[in-house]
């Protein structure tokens, strides 16, 4: 046995059907919530809310359907990698686009 796989044989217990169905119900409710809230006039809050709901749906899918939180911790960390790096890309690029017009420096 290798060092990395030493802990267990890696098989997780089988998730009950009801759990999957509950998640599906939750996902569809969240979908209804997004669609509904999009029709309300909330300004930029609309976008924030939409994205928050998207993240909620994502965590449901990742943790229950994809079992990202139930296996090894490594899997969980890897599952976040793409999102974190995408955040780096977007945030640093925005640091340029959102501060461009402000011209004179304060000193």
């Amino acid at each position: 046995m290798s060092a990395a796989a030493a802990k267990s044989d890696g098989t997780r217990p089988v998730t009950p059907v009801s759990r999957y169905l509950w998640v599906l119900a939750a996902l569809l409710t969240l979908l209804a919530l997004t669609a509904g809230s999009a029709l309300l006039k909330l300004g930029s809050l609309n976008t924030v809310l939409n994205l928050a709901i998207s993240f909620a749906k994502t965590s449901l899918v990742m943790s229950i359907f994809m079992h990202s939180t139930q296996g090894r911790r490594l899997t969980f960390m890897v599952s976040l990698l793409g999102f974190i790096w995408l955040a780096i890309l977007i945030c640093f690029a925005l640091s340029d686009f959102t501060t461009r017009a402000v011209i004179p420096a304060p000193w």
Partner: protein
Amino acid sequence: MSDFTWLLTQASSLAPEVDALFWFMVVLCGTVALGVICAIVYFSIRYRRGSDADRSGEPAQSLPVELTWTLIPGVLFTGVFIWSLFLFVKMHTPPADSQTIYIVAKQWMWKAQHPGGQREINTLHVPLGVPIRLTMTSQDVIHSFYVPAFRVKQDVLPGRYTQLWFMATKLGHYELFCAEYCGLDHSRMGGQIVVLRPSAFAQWLEGHAGPATLAAQGAALYRAHGCSGCHGANASIHAPDLNGLYGRPVHLANGTQVIADDRYIRDSILLPDQHVVAGYQALMPSFAGQLSEEDLLAIIAYLKARSESSHEHD
């Protein structure tokens, strides 16, 4: 001018300051490099195989040592960064009393327009000791305006204005290069900056005066394209008054506030719905494709002139 000197000429007010940082870095990095190289050579000789140097008692790690050479470079780097920060901000901030000259780049030439309507190609005449601000744009691809003797460089982009400033401190002719790769004749897209005494510069301006000043050309375009029809005093359409607009903060319909600089005015003309002024309808049509980059610069110069005269009346 094109003699080779080991020290590059310093012909602008920024040049000595940039050079100070540059040589400081050369000395700092040189010292560190020399130190490391000396250490390597010394160890290599002292501890070469077969030498009788004492080799006992050396640990393979040491936290204090590691922290020393983590923190010392860290502190030095921070210092250099702060120095460079102040200089960089200065290089980015034209003094308030700068004179503006407009530059339009295209494959593969530089076109300059002075406020008085004088135009030149691949040369730029500037007065000694006067801060000059260049407002630049490109008709096609990205170019870069580079004057080594002034230590200034700025990319020139299509669809956007970028700016750069310098104050020449030495008479003479200086090389102008295009520093961003722009296609076939990138290496020939050069020219000269001619620094003249202010009196000689004034003379030069007079000698090269065009039929009309840039602002006057702008005024003509302003009428010809029907801007005055909406923005004029007795227009039937509800459009903002453009007197005094240049350099003033503008409230936009989306709640933000911007300074009406060259770029803002350019965008207002080409992409009018990008920032709609608070309290107005997005009625203005886009003039993209109808006005060349030079026309736009002329209109901006005209609006700027109007603002300057209206500020005087305040």
